[in-house]
């Protein structure tokens, strides 16, 4: 589309900016403030500069949490994105089943996150939960509250269960918007199913997949409620992902300084990664 240059468009965007900035900037400044100060919990603050940042970057606890987080995020991305695309490819494009499929697949997305965590907790309990019981019945020694591997398995399966549908919905949206003529042309050109996927479907889904990947990346990096309710970060701190760790530091220990600094570091990591990814993906979009 040929967009016209019009600076008055700022007026149309103003309500959004005010609303979002109000919620974003003031709390952000508060957190930045915390990160640069020290408190002994009695509401007196002392300037400490970049001390917290230095502390954190040298702290093994930070790197351990970051490591766990990266492992989690990349694992679920590698599972959810291809799986979501694959399912979207097999969904019917037209007909009465489309609505049914969409509604059923969207259900996990609509459940409050604490309920998701609780649901999977109950589901995976070793003796009285459906999954736990069956796994143990077929011979696995499954106990996610005690064993690290099992905890990770449950955590990842829960996230896949919870969020793959988002990828499915977005990928489906992209697929459905491809005009029939492309498939007809491919037929005439003698293209195989794989080539159709590679040269028509995948490129046409690029925009929606970018949104899907970005959303999953950001949300999984910041995930808090579901794992908190599912495992509480345990056993031990095996599944203590970054937000849970932050929570322990900020509200548990009331170390607002380090917590503030940590959250800003994480924020910057996500920001940088997203920006790079976004720029790479959108590079060819300007037409």
């Amino acid at each position, binding site marked *: 589309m040929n967009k016209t240059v019009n600076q008055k468009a700022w007026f149309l965007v103003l309500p959004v*900016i005010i609303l*979002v900035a*109000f919620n974003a900037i003031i709390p952000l400044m508060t*957190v930045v403030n915390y990160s640069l100060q020290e408190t002994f919990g009695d509401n007196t603050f002392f300037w400490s500069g970049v001390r917290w940042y230095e502390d954190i970057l040298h702290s093994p606890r930070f790197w351990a949490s970051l490591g766990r987080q990266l492992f989690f995020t990349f694992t679920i991305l590698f599972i959810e994105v291809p799986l979501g695309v694959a399912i979207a490819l097999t969904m019917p494009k037209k007909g009465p089943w489309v*609505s049914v499929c969409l509604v059923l697949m969207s*259900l996990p997305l609509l459940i409050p996150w604490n309920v998701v965590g609780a*649901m999977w907790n109950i589901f995976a309990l070793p003796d009285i939960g459906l999954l736990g019981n069956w796994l143990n019945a077929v011979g696995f020694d499954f106990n996610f509250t005690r064993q690290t591997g099992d905890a990770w398995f449950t955590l990842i399966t829960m996230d896949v269960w919870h969020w793959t549908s988002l990828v499915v919905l977005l990928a489906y949206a992209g697929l*459905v918007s491809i005009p029939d003529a492309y498939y007809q042309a491919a037929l005439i050109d003698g293209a195989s199913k794989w080539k159709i996927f590679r040269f028509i479907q995948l490129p046409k889904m690029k925009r929606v997949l970018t949104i899907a990947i970005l959303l999953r990346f950001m949300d999984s990096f910041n995930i808090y409620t579901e794992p908190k309710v599912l495992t509480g970060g345990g056993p031990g701190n095996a599944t203590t992902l970054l937000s849970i760790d932050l929570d322990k530091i900020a509200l548990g220990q009331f170390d607002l300084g380090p917590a503030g600094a940590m959250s800003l570091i994480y924020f910057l990591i996500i920001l940088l990664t997203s920006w790079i990814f976004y720029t790479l993906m959108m590079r060819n979009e300007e037409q």
Partner: protein
Amino acid sequence: MRISKWLVPSLYILFLMLPIYWLVSMSFKTTNEILRGFSLFPQEFTLENYAKIFSDPTWYWGYLNSLAYVSMNTVLSVAVALPAAYAFSRYRFLGDKHLFFWLLTNRMAPAAVFALPFLQLYSSIGLFDTYLAVALAHTLFNVPLAVWILEGFMSGVPKELDETAYVDGHSFPSFFFKIFLPTIAAGIGVANFFCFMFSWVELLLAKTLTSVAAKPIAAVMTRTSSTSGYELGLLAAAGSLTIIPGAIVIWFVRNYIAKGFALGRV
């Protein structure tokens, strides 16, 4: 060939339904039965968990409160997103691309540490424990999403439509409300759905900014589990009920979603 096409979505849906089934079946059991051992179906079918919820104001107000602020947020988010999305779709202006990306960055910060500043902020303007507080707070992540979704749909509508309308004598508001919005109705449906979804499921800010009057159902549930031990049956019933509003919403917008996906470039 036919069968294998159906296999994948069917298996996936089965996988999705399994934990939900478990939750629902547990809601019809007594907590004793749950803790006693494993049973696929409720042995002693009971409605006492649901009865408790429907009779106790603390419980059912939790649902009503959640519905209240989620509805407010959905309307608000989409309302402010519409003009902004239009601007991004039709115009180029100073800083537009950066602004677009900045919007997305507001989903990037870990919420945990921001809970406290949010609390201070909304208390200071006297909105603590109100629906408005949560509705406003949720716009932080919902408005950017709504703008993204709506911009995608709007870009699919050619500018010629706008120009024709002006030639026909419409003013901008007249064109926008009578012609443009109906054209992207499906996109509005999709945006509404996602805003509802992300607001309904968000727990941390909703809990932080409320205490009694606007307490969301999620907060009521966590309170229960900590004070009187795990009343699993009750929790399961409460959880099952939280699925219903979402299911209703998506049932109503299902046609928009199916159609919207066909029309728009989400």
